[in-house]
């Protein structure tokens, strides 16, 4: 995929079913508009997302990955997002170590009623990733073409 002028980043968002996914649905109900380059992958809790999935996404060519869950303290499973917070603090350093710009990976807390925050977060992250350009550091497929 050569980089054309209207290049659209491909961003994967792991969203917890109880909070962020609900917030995303609410954004739809309110007909809010946000960039179309984010694909949501539903998980029961943000603590279900293993660092392996994030690395796999970058390896397979994603330009940005988000892990979104409930605000700490509001987790439907009481403590899930505490593990999320700790796991992905460590992962950010590892991504940097691997030469991936850490800004490509974002963790955000969005509750079921924060439809506006979901829209703004998607817009913000897609802008960040668009500025960073395609993820060339760590992906097989793009390496072959370039």
């Amino acid at each position, binding site marked *: 995929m050569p980089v054309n002028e209207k290049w*659209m980043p*491909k961003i*994967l968002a792991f969203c917890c*079913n*109880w909070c962020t*996914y*609900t917030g*995303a*649905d609410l*954004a*739809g*109900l309110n*007909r*809010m*508009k*946000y960039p*179309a*380059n984010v*694909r*949501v*992958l*539903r*998980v*029961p*809790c943000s*603590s*279900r*997302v*293993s660092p*392996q*999935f994030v690395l*796999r*996404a970058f390896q*397979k*060519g*994603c330009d940005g990955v988000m892990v979104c869950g409930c605000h700490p*303290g*509001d987790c*439907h*499973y*009481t*403590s*899930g997002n505490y*593990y999320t917070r700790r*796991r992905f603090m460590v992962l950010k350093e590892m991504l940097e170590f691997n030469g991936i710009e850490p800004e490509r990976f974002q963790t955000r807390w969005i509750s079921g009623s924060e439809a506006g925050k979901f*829209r703004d977060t998607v817009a913000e992250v897609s802008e960040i990733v668009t500025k960073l350009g395609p993820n060339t550091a760590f992906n097989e*497929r793009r390496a072959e073409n370039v």
Partner: protein
Amino acid sequence: MSRTGVFVCHCGSNIAGALDVERVAEAAGKLPGVRYAATYKYMCSEQGQQLVRDAIAEHGLDRIVIASCSPRMHENTFRKLLKDTPVNPYMLEIANIREQCAWVHTDREQATEKAIDLVRMAVAKVSKNKPLHSSFIPVHKKALVIGAGIAGIQAALDIADAGYEVTLLEKESSIGGHMVMLDKTFPTLDCSACISTPKMSEVAAHPNVTLMTGSTVESVGGYVGNFDVTIRQKAKYVNHDLCTGCGLCETKCPAKVTSEFNQQLCTRTAIFRPFPQAVPAKPVIDPDSCRKLSGKARCGVCQAVCPLGAIDFEDKDKLITDTYGAIVVATGYELVDWAPLYPEYGGGKYPDVITGLQYERLVNASGPTEGKILRPSDKSVPKEIVIVKCVGSRDKKKGRAYCSRACCMYSAKHAHQILDKIPDACVTVFYMDVRTPGKNYEEFYDRAREDGARYVRGRVAKIFRENGKLICRGEDTLLGRSVEVPADMVILETAMTPAPEIRELCARLSISTDEYGWVQEAHPKLRPVETQTAGVYLAGTCQGPKDIPDTVAQAGAAAAKVCILFSKNEIEGSPMISAVDENKCCGCSACVRVCPYRAVTLEEIDSREINGTVKRHVARVNAGLCQGCGACAAACRTGAIDLLGFTNAQILKEVDALCL
């Protein structure tokens, strides 16, 4: 090789209007493993579901992908559909191409591209789905109702009348909550005690109800159908089995403390019943104000005079643990502490500036003034009275933007009562809006004006005392002029706020509250009496400000929900729980540590190895306790424990599919 069917829904024009559904179906048709792809105007309709049944039969499909609205809407609908087909209900994936695609993107081309991606992810994931079968959880048919105001009482009565056991908790020493403090209730003006005390005695005498006053929830474990709850019952220092409620001790007790029930308008003794019609009608000793228990003096008068020896100073708090199938939260409200918020209304230094509840105690026959409206400062009959509405409500600056809903009506009631009881009284009501959203409410407001209440539209800016009068400064915005109204007494209709310890209780029940502390209902319109935690229900003002009619209606609804739960001996647990592949498990117990529900334990097993059988530890999941969060699956280094329905394989497939 999987034989997948993909069904793309138009959803009328909701989806078809924003993206090219035909192209999505066509692209889906070319995906590996897809045997059949079609679109239909309304997949969730009867005909849409029939289309799926026919396609399964005709093409021998074993996996289904529906590209439609959010799975949170119709996943269950399509699972029920698959129940009576050869396809297992969990061989199904939903692609959300409405709320998260059609409705939120304006560019038709990009939306179609995204929809195709989402379908490709769903097809990839479904290829790794496995048939799953539900496990069943026993239901303890015993309910716990927290809070014994009118909401808790009504819910407990309804559940008990349905034949189930109920434990009704109340943190105060008598049940009745705020309703029993009131004199009359709107819009019919019938006496509050006359309609609530019968219910109080009925619930106290009901064979199925165990009433526990002075009790709060210490901790909650378990899950729907099997909550194990520890209750702390405060020491009463009076043995209620011996005591007959004769009241002799109350007359002799020397300690005098302000009465919380009477809103600080009069005092009560250390050994006391909050009000004459208290249920249970037996006193308790308040350890802080009792001279003997607080160590101030030797006293012990009550013990000496008690003919039945019911006083027991050695009484201790009790911790009782029990298992409940359902919990109803009915913790009610408190009035906001207005004094620190409103220095411009005197900040509490004027005794004749009182709250609505203090007024209710004044006008109540069992109140400190036996129903005569006398102002607290000099017990004289106030002639000019000002009622100020929205004190603490609808005021972002003071921290609460919401409307407390009931004050418009009860301020009209207050105005009516004053004009009724004090012949030549002059009542001025400062209001912004008068909201009468109920049956006969508007007519009730008309009557208050006909009685002569003067309604002035404008919010009071300042109340101060000068030459014996309380001057209320407001603007009559309809007249466009500022005005000073001198008054003998001012009634502030203050905002409702949640009960003080609501946040701790919600943390224990793992249900959330909004920024003000009102308990978060599962869905404001469709599931108002349920919470996010299955088996925990809501009733009354703990969920938000409301009046008595709505509270009682909600109490009945919550009771109905409990009865629905109890109508089955066991409930179908979700099959999407963790499972352990014991060959891969090395017993490192990482999963045991992260599980919020203590659902994973290490078991010792005999494992056949090359050199004979060896004893080793492996993880084991308790199907009843596991709620399917998946924290263990992410913590497991070897992938031994995995979450069925969201296995590592499924998610990795979904990630790969996105990046083709």
